[in-house]
């Protein structure tokens, strides 16, 4: 009975935010601001509590049976094809649920203050709740299609929230861009789903959902032949949602939205959905080294590439955005090398410190009366103490300073990259360099913002003030989390238990099980997967020295980066200048303009597409060919025939008589010749 109750909770975890959104949305202006805000926060809070309850229940269950599911109804059903409207929680989704609702709750609180004076207060919280609903559907969805529902839902919410201040054309455009780019990714995602369905449907009898994760895992051997294709297609979707190359372009623009949105959606939760999905489908990914390699490559490339751009940006949020992209690259890299646990671990820690950083920057922007350009900031250390210290914590965390959260997750990822069969030295090196750059540009950010003299107009300066408690409180909490958050993953070689990995073990172990009795052509893939796990599991046992060395190296490297950043932008600013002008400054220009990728897309696809559609398809084929030539043409031909015949109707009796006789003659001749 009791567990039934907890199962029922699952649907409410998802629905309560929806109710909140509905109430807020319908009542809208009629609802006083405080009420609206509290309603929203309460909704998220409740679902956070419920998530905790269910999560605790999981912890009480035996390791292999940690799975709670709640089937609401049959969604689609036609013959052997069936999809359920169902939710489920296992260790993986449990973690995600906690992160989403937890961080989400904090950011709701924060928004109370941040949006206090905004006209669309109620609308904002409607969207936020809606987002939590969608995100929870994504996380708790029991099958791939439910996940897809959430997937599209969060896309919609991000669209709505990016374009929240829609009166500015740019914001609207950014929102649209985000949605469409995501759609491109979803295109691949859908095809992946189809491919799965095609291989599973024959073996269904309508008693179980086709796309249910359990079903897929159970019949994984039917999927094995197409594993590579499926995984790559799914990964296309992931690149869209998690802003990987080549579809990352929407994320920087997405910063047009209110800062809490950037924190919640475009840093902490939604963008990690891709990683979550890959991890979720790990049992399939491990069967295909190719796909894994691609994932890893894309991930590490993104990590490096984005951080180079971040070096030169002047908009405080843009810097954070690109850093987010590169961090996401790390997560993908982890998944790519089979270290799903590490990936998810980084998802969590990153959620903490990146949310923190964004909220901090929000607090700064708030103080600077909506100024985002770092070049006119500076010297805020005194004026915004809380913001400064929490921000600093976040910076060290992301830079991977021991013993902050970032250190553990990032270090583990790098180590796995180095050690596991899927990885190697090259990816490690690249990731390592990226880590250094991360530290550097974060320090640059901090220095430009908080140190030195303030470069803003006196009028602005006069308004600078520390944010209200509703905003600082979440900052503090998140700061604490980003300090201690990593400890649950304290690695073995430091004598920790790496509880986090152990917790996720059942989810990812099952993958290898499936791989083991998969078709024989994927055996060595399975072997590799097994090897990876084996290694992670017993790393503590033998040669931890290498691990120590790498950990130390990355720590030093991080510190070095921080120091360099501080040095360059605090003491010797001319150095920065000279670097910028390196080689005629072309390098800097390229980085500043993000490698001109947007322009490239624009020139390559968008403009030609429109021109083609307008001039060739519409004006040319539709109006010209079909309507003009075929339709009106045939009509004209008929008319012409008519008027030609009219000519004979000339009113001359004698001509009539003549044609009459001609008719007769023809007839007579025909008769005489036909016999």
């Amino acid at each position, binding site marked *: 009975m009791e567990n039934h109750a907890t199962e029922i909770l699952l649907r409410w975890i998802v629905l309560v935010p929806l109710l909140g959104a509905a109430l807020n949305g319908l009542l809208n202006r009629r609802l006083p601001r405080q009420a609206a805000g509290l309603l929203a926060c309460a909704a998220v809070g409740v679902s956070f509590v419920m998530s905790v309850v269910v999560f605790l229940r999981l912890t009480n269950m035996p390791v292999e049976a940690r799975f709670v599911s709640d089937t609401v109804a049959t969604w689609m059903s036609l013959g052997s094809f069936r999809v359920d409207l169902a939710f489920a929680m296992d260790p993986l989704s449990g973690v995600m649920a906690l992160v989403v609702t937890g961080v989400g709750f904090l950011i709701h609180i924060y928004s109370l203050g941040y949006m206090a004076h905004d006209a669309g207060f109620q609308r904002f919280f409607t969207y936020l709740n809606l987002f939590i609903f969608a995100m929870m559907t994504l996380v708790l969805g029991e099958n791939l299609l439910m996940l897809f529902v959430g997937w599209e839902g969060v896309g919609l919410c991000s669209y709505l929230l990016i374009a929240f201040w829609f009166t500015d054309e740019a914001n609207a455009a950014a929102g649209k861009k985000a949605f469409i780019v995501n759609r491109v990714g979803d295109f691949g995602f859908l095809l992946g789903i189809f491919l799965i369905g095609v291989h599973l449907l024959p073996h269904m009898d309508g008693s179980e959902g086709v796309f249910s994760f359990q079903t897929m895992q159970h019949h994984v051997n039917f999927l094995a032949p197409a594993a590579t294709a499926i995984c790559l297609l799914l990964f296309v979707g992931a690149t869209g949602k998690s802003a990987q190359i080549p579809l990352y372009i929407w994320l920087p623009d997405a910063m047009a939205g209110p800062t809490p949105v950037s924190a919640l959606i475009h840093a902490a939760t939604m963008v990690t959905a891709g990683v979550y999905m890959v991890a979720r489908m790990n049992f399939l990914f491990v069967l295909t080294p190719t796909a894994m390699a691609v994932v890893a490559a894309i991930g590490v490339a993104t990590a490096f590439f984005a951080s180079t751009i971040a070096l030169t940006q002047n908009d405080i949020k843009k810097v954070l955005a690109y850093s987010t992209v590169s961090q996401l690259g790390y997560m993908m890299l982890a998944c790519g090398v089979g270290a799903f646990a590490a990936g998810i671990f980084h998802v969590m820690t990153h959620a903490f410190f990146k949310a923190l950083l964004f909220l901090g920057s929000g607090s700064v922007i708030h103080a600077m009366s909506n100024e985002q350009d770092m070049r006119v900031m500076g010297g805020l250390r005194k004026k915004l103490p809380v913001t400064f210290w929490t921000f600093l914590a976040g910076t060290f965390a992301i830079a991977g300073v021991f013993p902050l959260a970032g250190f553990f997750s990032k270090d583990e990822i790098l180590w796995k990259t180095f050690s596991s069969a899927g990885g190697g030295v090259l990816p490690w090196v690249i990731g390592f360099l990226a880590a250094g750059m991360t530290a550097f540009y974060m320090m640059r950010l901090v220095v430009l913002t908080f140190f030195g003299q303030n470069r803003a107009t006196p009028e602005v300066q006069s308004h600078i003030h520390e944010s209200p408690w509703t905003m600082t409180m979440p900052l503090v909490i998140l700061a604490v989390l980003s300090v201690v958050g990593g400890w649950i993953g304290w690695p073995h070689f430091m004598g920790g238990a790496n509880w986090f990995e152990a917790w996720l073990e059942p989810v990812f172990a099952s993958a290898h099980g499936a791989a083991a009795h998969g078709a024989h052509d994927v055996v060595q893939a399975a072997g590799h997967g097994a090897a990876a796990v084996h290694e992670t599991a017993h790393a503590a046992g033998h040669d931890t020295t290498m691990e120590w060395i790498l950990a130390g190296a990355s720590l030093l490297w991080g510190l070095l980066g921080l120091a360099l950043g501080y040095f360059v932008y605090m003491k010797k600013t001319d150095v920065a200048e000279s670097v910028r002008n390196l080689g005629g400054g072309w390098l800097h220009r390229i980085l500043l303009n993000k490698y001109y990728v947007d322009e490239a897309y624009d020139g390559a696809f968008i403009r030609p597409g429109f021109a083609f559609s307008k001039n060739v398809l519409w004006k040319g084929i539709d109006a010209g060919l079909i309507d003009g030539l075929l339709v009106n043409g045939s009509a004209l031909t008929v008319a012409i025939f008519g008027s030609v015949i009219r000519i004979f109707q000339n009113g001359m009796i004698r001509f*009539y008589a003549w044609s009459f006789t001609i008719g007769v003659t023809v007839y007579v001749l025909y008769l005489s010749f036909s016999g």
Partner: protein
Amino acid sequence: MNDILIPQLGSQVGPLLPYLIVAGGGLLIMLVDAFVRTLKKDHLSYLAMFVLIGAVVVQIIGDQSDTQLLNGMMITSDFTRFFNFLFCGIGVMTIIFATGVYDREGDYRPEFYPLILFTILGMMVLAAANDLMTLFLGLETMSLATYILVGGVRGNIRSSEAGFKYLILGGFSSAFLLMGMALLYGFAGGTGFNAIATALDAGEIDVLLVGLGSALMLVGFGFKVAMVPFHMWTPDVYDGAPAYVTGFMATAIKAAGFAILVRFAILMQPQLAFAWFPVLSVFAVLTMFTGNLVALAQNNIKRMLAWSSIAHAGYLLLGVLAMISPATGGSDMMMRAKEIGISSGAAILFYLVGYSLMNLAAFGLVNILSHNKGEEGEDINRYAGLSRTRPMAAASMAVAMLSLAGIPPFVGFMGKFYLFEAVVRAGLIPLAILGVINSLISVYYYLRVIVVMYMKPAEEDSYHGTEWVSVVTSSVLILLVIYMGVQPQAFYQAAARVFLGITF
């Protein structure tokens, strides 16, 4: 060498009564018009209608036997009775419409009433003909009277011209018809259809006499039903004649023409296959296309309807083709021949009735909507906004147009359905396809009238007519059009019964 047979006449008066009534009525009206001084406007029309209705009534209560009268000069059968109904009905409608504009300057024509009665008499005789001579005389009675109806509008040069054109070309064509008859007579050695039938059954067919003869007769009939290339008089004459006469010609005379065509086709089965079928199929297709294509270009509604009537003649000719189509081989050849004969014949008759209804409705409205003075009188654009000034008339006109275009649920569609069904049944699918293509083309110009009436704003000189009798009459016809479109069964069966007794 048989004797004078006045004594025998008594036995045959019964079946002859309708004919006698119409003839006598014509004479009576003539005398009344001549000698009764105190005539009021509608008296003559009442009288004429009374005569026609009387003829119909007598027809209904009279004997329904199939007999040959007057030494086989004519017959009475369901066939003739059917057409007598049709002709008399059309006559009544025409008289109503004519009376509607009776007091218009130039349109007062007391001679109209006797003449139309004689025209109808001629048609009735034509349909009942069982002898080349009867056929010819019926045809000429009809034609001569029509020449006068067309050309007799005093003070209207267009009418006179139309009349003369019709007359002189009619004479020209009847010369061909007569030549054909002469040759056929030469083949059969007798003018009676019975004689011809026996001669045909007797075997060896003289190709020249039969083939050329029936060909020339087809030419003659073709002239009457406006078959391309013998159609060219049609638009001009329809245009020049007063609208009510045009309506009468477009319906009654066409019906008469097809009556005799069908009659003759049945008579000559299956020898016509070689003499008529190939050329007639070409002519039929030409007729459909010419009619529809030229109608597209018309601005004058009477000319438009004239051309459309040519097109409809084309559809009907398809029916005739189905009737005479060389029956496909096989054991059940005779069976199929009969089946096809009945279905196509019934289809033709049904179509004639439906076509007459909708065309009469249209012409009745044209008759009052357009004062018959010169071209601009019938310019379609003068109907602009009619749907506001005279909704009833506009609605009736619209339905008539849709029905003519063959859109369900109106009789026009049902007629086409039966007709094309017969054509397909006879295995002439290409012809059926050409037929539907034509009804497609026709849609455009029929819709145009509706467009003008309903979708164009009214102009000040749009329409000035107050005559309501015609409008009501047309509306009644329209109700029939709809009813027959929804419940055609009874009418079709009546039409089919006509052919049950006939051997094909």
